[in-house]
């Protein structure tokens, strides 16, 4: 098993993929394995995080378990 990162909107273009399987662990360690420029984008102040479909108030203490899905949500533009 692994955890999954999901990149929405423009972040998919930045990442070059819609999602990525990663080894479980603390988020900062997971992000350290990515391209640093992408990691900076993912931690941008306008990017919100959702763990298994639930919006997170704080991204600081996220630890990914096996099977977790962490989505990176840039500002929305619907309608």
């Amino acid at each position, binding site marked *: 098993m692994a955890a999954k990162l*999901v990149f*929405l*909107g423009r972040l998919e273009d930045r990442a070059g993929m819609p999602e990525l399987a990663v080894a479980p662990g603390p988020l900062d360690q997971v992000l350290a394995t990515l391209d640093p420029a992408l990691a900076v984008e993912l931690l941008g102040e306008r990017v919100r995080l959702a763990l298994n*479909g639930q*919006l997170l108030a704080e991204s600081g203490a996220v630890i990914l378990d096996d099977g977790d899905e962490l989505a990176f*949500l840039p500002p*929305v*533009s*619907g*309608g």
Partner: protein
Amino acid sequence: MADVRLLGEPFDPAAEIAAFAAAHRVAGGVVSFLGQVREGDGVEALELRHYGPMTLPGMVQLAGAVESRWPLDGLLILHRHGVMEPGDPIVLVAAAARHRRDAFGAADFAMDHLKSDSWFWKRERTGGRWRWVEPRAQDYADRARW
């Protein structure tokens, strides 16, 4: 009571409104808003992306908020995802109420929140190139009215 749908295929707004009005005959007023892909500015196509675990649940939650705020007989929220062309319907909101002011308010509120609060990401193709569309300050200002 609300009919909330996230659609991957084109829909017929006139048929949807007719069916909605027929299903809510006790309502004296039905207000609807149709958003369609704007023609012009060289836009060849528009794509709306969604996120399965959150987009439809968020729309259902929005419908609940609308219904708790206005006394409605019915509420319809349809939103497309996928690639659309100029003239294609994107979003349809309809509210049925005994009094028109409630129906206007409910549809207006639902649209402002669909624009700035729902989990959709939009990109446009012009000159063969896709470009992500950022939300406008006006969209946030519209939402802040409530």
